[in-house]
Each structure stands twice: as structure tokens, then as C-alpha cells.
């Protein structure tokens, strides 16, 4: 498959945007300006970026508690996100949701979700909606390997397989679910094997390889758009940070963490881009610099924004 230069630049831009956004959130959280809890996507950027580069604005994605990267990859605006994470009225959810519920239905991003596994049937339903309406929309459902052990994994994939729905179940296998090594609580840790039980393709992908991600998802998306049904993709990566900011991570072997830091998807992709002559180091640095500025603006926007008034609590329940 030939990826266009534009696509590659788009993927890189998204990865850098996610990386820079998450680094800002990390700092802000440490500084105490963010209420509640945040789960960062650092180190996993290639997955969302590579996957969503196959989608249009009309397609759907469904996200998780670790959702900043997904929203950015689907085209989300970092200022509105930052405002939401900081609990401001100008945020995506007007301060009602926060980090765990960032969403932008207008661009098909059907929400981060604080309940592990809850996104799977929602994505399934969005795909059924596309099928019934006869559009060529597809849905990508992002979730962790931990979520793959929840009840909804089974019910959703079976439904989608039976109905041949245009949906991609994309596991972000970052090895950990909070402080549990997921392989320890599963009968079979090669998750792609589960696809056999539903009669659908199961694909293993290097989740830290942006190009591999793009290509594997391209195939699954094409399959979905053709009406051939769902694909289960297992993208291996690593959760760089604690489960949430503030997690001391006593449970993680140091060497493991260090080993995975070396697999940083960004330098890897950068090398690919420069080696193939697609972009120069300067071009990449310029995008990176642009992101730093974007985050400064996003932060300023968020911090200059008012908090919602307490009475707004009572709004937005019923349409």
C-alpha cells in the first residue's frame, strides 16, 4: 500500500499534537490546576494517529478513560479539550465531563468513557446505525487489553460479527490494567486468537509503528466499508506513565519500563520519515514547535475561560 506524503505528515502532526498535549496535561496536573484524575496516552500515540488517519469526519470512534489521544486523532481541538480537562465552561462538555468524558459528536467522537468496556456496544450501535442508514461510515472502537476481558467485549463482537457491521475493535494492549499485568489474569494472552471464536479476522500489529498501524487499519476499514464486517485488531504498546497521574507504580519492573521507553513511537516514525526522504528534520521540528505554541495557546484559552456557574448543574439532562 502506498501512503501519500500528506497522510504521513498528517499522522506525524497528530502524534506530535497528542504527545505535546499530554505533556502539558502532565505538568498541569502536577501543578494542581486539574481537578479529578487524568489518564495519559503518552507512548501510545501511534495507535490513535495511525488508525484515525483512515477515517473521515463522518466516521465514528469510541474511546476510553484514556481518551485524549483518540479525540485529537479524530480532529479534536486542543483548546476545547484543555478547557474541559480544566473544568471550564468553554470546554467540550462545558465542564460537565472532564478528562474521562471528552467528546465531540460533531466529528463522530462518541466520547471517552469512565466505565471500562462500555464503549464496545456503543461503537457497535453506531456501526449498526451506519448500516441501517446505508452510509459507508465505519466505527473504530478503541479499548485496552484490560477491557477485552469485560462482558461487553463478547456480546458486542458477536453482535457485530453476526450482523457484519462496519466496526473495528481495536485493542490497545499496553500490558497493564491499573496495577495488574493483564497476561496474569487471562487464560490466553494472545488476544487476536479470540477472533477465531467469532469468525472474524484477528490481526496483530506493532502499536508503536505508525505506518504499520495505518496500513493494518486501512485494510480493516476497507473491509468494513465493503460490508464484510468487523475486524479485531490487537496493537501492542506500553503505558509509559502510571495508570493515572499520581500512581507511584511500585508494581512495574523498572527494566521493562526502560526497555519500552526505547521503543518510543515518535523517534521511530521520525527516523522513517527522514530515512525515506519524506520529510526533513527541520520540517518535523517546525511542526513540533507549532505544537508547543498550540498548547500554550490552548492552556491560555482554558485558564482565561470561566468556570461554569454552579446552577448549570441543572442543565443538559433532557433534550
Amino acid at each position, binding site marked *: 500500500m502506498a501512503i501519500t506524503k500528506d497522510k504521513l505528515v498528517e499522522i506525524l502532526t497528530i502524534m506530535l499534537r497528542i504527545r505535546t498535549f499530554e505533556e502539558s496535561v502532565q505538568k498541569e496536573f502536577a501543578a494542581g490546576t486539574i481537578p479529578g484524575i487524568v489518564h495519559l496516552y503518552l507512548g501510545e500515540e501511534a495507535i490513535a494517529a495511525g488508525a484515525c488517519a483512515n477515517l473521515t469526519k463522518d466516521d465514528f470512534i469510541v474511546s476510553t478513560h484514556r481518551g485524549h489521544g483518540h479525540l485529537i486523532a479524530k480532529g479534536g481541538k486542543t483548546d476545547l479539550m484543555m478547557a474541559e480537562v480544566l473544568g471550564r465552561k468553554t470546554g467540550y462538555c462545558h465542564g460537565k465531563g472532564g478528562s474521562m468524558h471528552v467528546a465531540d459528536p460533531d466529528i463522530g467522537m*462518541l466520547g471517552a468513557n469512565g466505565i471500562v468496556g462500555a464503549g464496545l456496544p456503543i461503537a457497535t450501535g453506531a456501526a449498526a446505525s451506519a448500516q441501517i442508514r446505508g452510509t459507508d461510515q465505519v466505527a473504530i472502537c478503541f479499548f485496552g487489553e484490560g477491557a477485552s476481558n469485560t462482558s461487553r467485549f463478547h456480546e458486542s463482537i458477536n453482535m457485530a460479527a453476526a450482523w457484519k457491521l462496519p466496526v473495528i475493535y481495536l485493542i490497545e494492549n499496553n500490558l497493564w490494567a491499573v496495577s495488574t499485568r493483564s497476561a496474569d489474569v487471562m487464560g490466553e494472552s494472545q488476544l487476536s486468537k479470540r477472533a477465531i471464536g467469532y469468525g472474524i479476522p484477528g490481526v496483530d500489529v506493532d502499536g508503536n509503528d505508525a505506518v504499520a498501524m495505518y496500513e493494518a487499519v486501512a485494510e480493516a476499514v476497507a473491509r468494513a466499508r465493503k460490508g464484510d464486517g468487523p475486524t479485531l485488531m490487537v496493537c501492542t504498546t506500553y503505558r509509559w506513565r502510571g495508570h493515572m497521574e499520581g500512581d507511584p507504580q511500585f508494581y512495574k519492573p523498572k527494566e521493562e519500563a526502560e526497555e519500552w521507553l526505547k521503543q518510543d513511537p515518535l523517534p521511530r516514525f521520525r527516523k522513517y520519515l527522514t530515512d525515506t526522504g519524506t520529510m526533513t528534520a527541520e520540517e518535523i521540528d517546525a511542526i513540533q514547535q507549532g505544537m508547543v505554541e498550540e498548547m500554550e495557546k490552548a492552556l491560555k484559552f482554558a485558564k482565561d475561560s470561566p468556570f461554569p456557574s454552579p446552577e448549570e448543574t441543572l442543565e443538559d439532562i433532557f433534550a
Partner: protein
Amino acid sequence: MREITFLEAQQEAINEEMGRDDTVFVLGENVQAMSTTGLWKDLSTKYGDMRVRDTAISEQAILGAAIGAAATGMRPIASLMFVDFLGICSDELINQLQMRYMFGGKIKMPLTIVAGCGAGRSIAAQHSKSLYGWLMTIQGLKIAVPSNAYDAKGLLKAAIREDNPVLYLTHKLSGGQSSQVPDEDYIIPLGQADVKREGSDVTIVSIAYGVTMALAAAEKLQANGISAEVIDLRSLAPLDKETIINSVQKTGRLVVTTEEPVTGSAAAEIAAIVAEEAFDYLDAPIKRVCAPDTPIPFSPGMEQFWIPDEDDLIKAVTEIM
């Protein structure tokens, strides 16, 4: 106007709404062939398999997919068979239906959940619940429970057209009831109670098959010189407080009957509202006529003991006169 049964009224409602709006579709177990309730009769022949979708036994996927479809332009009707099965997809009920709120008002959720409820058929603890009180605690969910064919049709059409999630329950003993139903299109707005019988001495608030029971009790009370007003809530959410309070203002006495264990019942909520907002109108304690705090037993004699009935209601009313 013609007389049709409760079930026929519901079949008409779904059929008409599916004809009226292409985005309405049905998903659930056994909806294509036949179902325990007969609600889906003939629909798959008429509207095809795309819009009448048989699922596996996967209640989380059914309700969760309905949510995903409702958030993306469809108007699903999710068949959950019995309200007892809602425990399986309760995360959808308490944590996912609220998408609109969590997203700051960004989405519509035009979704109807239909299920049967109620005891009286000796099908024991897991197929006879009503769960009214449990369900009323769910944020952002409207709940309709008709007591006759006319209301059944009007409320179901309102539910399907509603841009918010609605749970529409049918009591197992109501299905055969008949009433006059207009030929032309009509809806009954959610959240409007109906005074099914006027009276001056005591207010009886009831719902679903309990209305039929309350009306029978009211007749007997009349014979004893007690004039009971019978309110049919029709919707548990939104709850029509005004109709209840106005009635209590008139009668000074309140008995609430709902078919469920008394603790945490819908009757508790109604009693609490009146004890707070209409206390000064009350001339007597508020009585709840509910079931005891136990699961529903199988054997008919015990089941009948469990179900709040006419005698229980008459006794409660008499105690506060």
C-alpha cells in the same frame, strides 16, 4: 373509535411509528419470529430484517448498541423482554444513558426500551418484578407504564417520538385489557398523570395493573361510604407531582400502591414528596400498599399474598379514615 386490546394498541403504535419515521428500528431477542409479548407481530415482514433485528441473548449489547445508534441519528426500540433482565444491562442504565449530560448537552438520545413487568403468573422471583423504585433513581430516564389500551398506545407513540431515553413497561396482566381507541393519530405526553376516578375522601395513587385493582377497590369503598379518588400515574418519570398534590389538597388523605417490595418503592418517593410539599393538607398518615420485602415466591398462594391487592388497599384506606 373502536375497541381494541392493550396488545393491539401497542402493535399499532409501533407499526405506525415505524411507518412514519425511517429511523425507528427494533432490536432484541426473538423479535423477528415471535415474542413472548407479541409486540413485534408482522413487523419484520413489513419493514425487513434491517429494521427488525434479532439479536443473541446479549442484553448489554442490545441496550448498548441502542444507545450508540440513538446517539448517531437512529431512533431504536430495544426489546428487553422482562424488566427483571435490566440488571444485566444496568451499567447502560445508570452510566451510559446519561451521555447527553456528560457531554454538556451535545447529543440526543431518542431511545425506547420496552419490557414486561409484574407478578401474577407464577413465574417466580426472576420474571415477576416491577422495580419501579429502583428504576426511578436512574437519571435522565423517562418511564411510562400504561394501565389501559388507550394510554398504552398514546404513551408508546410518545415514547418513540421522544428525544430522550424512555423505558416503557407493560404489566403482564394488562395485555388483554380493551378500551376505546381513536382511529386517528394521538399521543399521551409523558409525565401526565390521569385521574381515573374522582373522589373526595382519600387519594389513591396507583400505576399499571394496580390501577385496575385500585378502581375495583374504590367501588367497594364507595359501597362503604368512602369516596376514593384514583390517580393513574401513567409515567413514573417525569412524575406528575401537581396532580397528586392537588388531589391530596382536596382529600387530605393519601394511599399509594405500587406492586414491589415496600422498601425503596415508587410509593416511598411519592409519600416523601407529599410529606414534604403537602404536609399541611394531610389529615392522616400516608399509607403505602406494596409488597413485603422479599423476592417474589413461586407458589400461587404465596405469590397472591405477596401482591398488594384490593383487600390490602381497602384495609389501608379504612385505617386512615
